[in-house]
């Protein structure tokens, strides 16, 4: 039975890739390695989910074409909640028997779902989870997304220099793990930099009217407003702030790191400062190839999330290659070998620059950026020399 299937697969492979690549793939691996992609494509987090899915699929398409390894990506929609992510993880682990999982989108989902993978020994690579404590969930949890604990200090320091900051108001979403974690980091950093917090005001994921919070923040007379929010709430906040006559700049966390916010908020997004793990202009060959092929494929500019997803997929494929899997091993072996191989990845070329994993499975990314919105684009913000 299997021989017959594989003869036809071989025939198909040769048809679609008549060159050497196709043959090499067949020679190296008898079966593709299954990788689960847990992405929220529907619901309010689709603003992140869509570029992440695109980044994954683009990377695996290119990897399979190159043929050093063969990956069978299985995409499932988690929606925006924890339950959705948990259900998808269960399906991946038990029914689909995947060898590794990429995702989920939100840190709050990761805190809910990743423990299942840890229990089953399935390696998980987060590409957009930036809250504190993600790799600490368990021994098989990795991430390529620079945590906010590292990005926010840089944003605050640069913003302090550029804006001569002394007094800010802080707004944050207290109904989401990621935004709360971001808020705590902001609060610590503001204190360390001696910046006075005139007022701290909360809202909740799903809110649409922020007039009360913004009026209160305005009354505190800040030089800038620091916000830890997800994209939907962040966009509404920016628009409503400008409508209420608030002109001071906003400093956002990773949730603001999305060109869609600029599209939606338009002029209201001008001056927004965010920390980012990726800028389109990074001049490496891998980044240029990623940027161009993404635009060709999806007719859209990639953003940080797409770049991180692409990098995550590359890292998983590299781990499969280093583990020397044939695809015929039992699933337990595949899982543990990939997890082991992931720990060996150091200084690996991706659109994010050369990244690797630290001993605690967190991303080791030497270069991150602070960006500001000017003329409808994110550009790198450098402190005055």
């Amino acid at each position, binding site marked *: 039975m299997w021989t017959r299937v594989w003869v036809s697969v071989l025939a198909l492979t040769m048809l679609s890739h008549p060159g050497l690549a196709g043959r090499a793939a067949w020679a190296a691996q008898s079966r593709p390695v299954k990788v689960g992609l847990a992405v929220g494509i*529907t*619901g*309010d987090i*689709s*603003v992140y989910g*869509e570029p992440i899915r695109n980044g994954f699929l683009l990377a695996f398409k290119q990897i399979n074409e190159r043929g050093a390894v063969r990956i069978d990506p299985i995409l499932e929609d988690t929606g925006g909640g924890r339950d959705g992510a948990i259900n998808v993880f269960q399906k991946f682990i038990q029914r689909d028997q995947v060898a590794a999982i990429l995702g989920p989108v939100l840190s709050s989902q990761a805190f809910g779902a990743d423990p299942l993978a840890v229990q089953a020994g399935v390696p998980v690579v987060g590409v957009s989870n930036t809250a504190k404590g993600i790799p600490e969930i368990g021994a098989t949890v990795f991430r390529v997304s620079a945590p906010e604990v590292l990005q926010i200090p840089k944003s605050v320091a640069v913003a302090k220099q550029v804006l001569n900051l002394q007094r800010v108001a802080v707004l944050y979403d*207290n109904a989401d793990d990621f935004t709360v974690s971001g808020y705590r980091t902001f609060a610590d950093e503001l204190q360390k930099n001696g910046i006075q917090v005139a007022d701290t*005001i*909360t*809202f*909740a994921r*799903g*809110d*649409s*009217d922020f*007039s*009360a*919070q913004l*009026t*209160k923040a305005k*009354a505190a007379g800040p030089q800038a407003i620091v916000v830890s929010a997800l994209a*939907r709430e962040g*966009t*509404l906040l920016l*628009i*409503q702030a400008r*409508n*209420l*006559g608030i002109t001071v700049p906003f400093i956002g966390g990773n949730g603001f790191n999305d060109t*869609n916010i600029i599209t*939606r*908020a*338009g002029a209201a997004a001008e001056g927004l400062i965010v920390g980012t793990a990726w800028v389109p202009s990074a001049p490496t060959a891998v980044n240029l190839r990623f940027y161009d092929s993404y635009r060709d494929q999806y007719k859209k500019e990639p953003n940080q999330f797409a770049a991180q997803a692409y990098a995550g997929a590359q890292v998983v494929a590299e781990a499969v290659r280093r583990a020397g899997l044939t695809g015929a091993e039992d699933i337990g072996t595949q899982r543990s070998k990939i997890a082991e191989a992931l720990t060996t990845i150091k200084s690996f070329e991706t659109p994010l620059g050369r990244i690797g994993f630290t001993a605690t499975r967190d991303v080791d990314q030497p270069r991150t950026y602070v960006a500001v919105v000017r003329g409808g684009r994110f550009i790198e913000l450098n402190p005055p020399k």
Partner: protein
Amino acid sequence: MTVFLQQLINGISLGSVYALFALGFTLIFGVLEIINLAHAAILAVGALLAYTLFTSLGAGLVIALLGASIGTGVLGIVIDVVAFRPLRARRAGRLASLITSIGVALILVNLAQILWGSEPLSYPPGTVPLRFFTGGGLTVSLLQILVLAITILLLIGLRFLLIRTKVGVAMRAVAESPATATLLGIPFDRVVVFTFFLSSALGGVAGVLIGMLLQGSVSPFMGNAYGLKGLAAIILGGMGDIGGAVLGGLVMGIGEIMIVQYLNSSYRDGVAFGLLFLVLIVRPTGLLGRQRSREA
């Protein structure tokens, strides 16, 4: 003082949005005693319909408002025929229609997601009158005034309809007793269809206005924020009383905003629902509700 006044403006603005939502919500309850939890989804559909009218057909504001309200009105009739009429025919209890309305809401939201996608949308620039009046540190937008004015106009219009017109009298008769109304020759099914049309059209108008007021919030999920608050507003005001719905909405809106300003924003929902709880202890019928006599 400026801050208080600005927050009062914000509160009235948010309150009139709740009131607008609550008007259609309370109408169905008042006439048919159905708590139609699909009303929040209808609101979202109305806002999305207007989006399509704006973007694909280049419609103006009036056309978009009319189109969205007629569209959701017709949708309301379809919902009644498909979901609620079979229940009435089987003489199912109130709980059955409540659960059914949750099912309808789920179907509508998911259909809307297929049709319009899940990303939040903004009405195209230029379609919405973005004018701001500032003075003495206060900001009021033309839209905020418009929303409040439309809410009050709709309230007066509905009052007039219910008290002075024939169809209004028929609706009140059905509300009093469907059986007696039918015996007296009032076409029960037609009254129900009209009630659903009117209530859903109001929901559609509410959706468009909210979409304009809160730019960038138009999505299949936009009704979620109003479902529970709207229910609270009509309970607060007195179930089935349209004046009460508006009053309840305004009290909720102003209350929430003031809590953010003077207490702590984390208590926003807690205090709002706490207030509801207190009112219900003191006045179980709500602020304007009257005990209905049912001893006939």
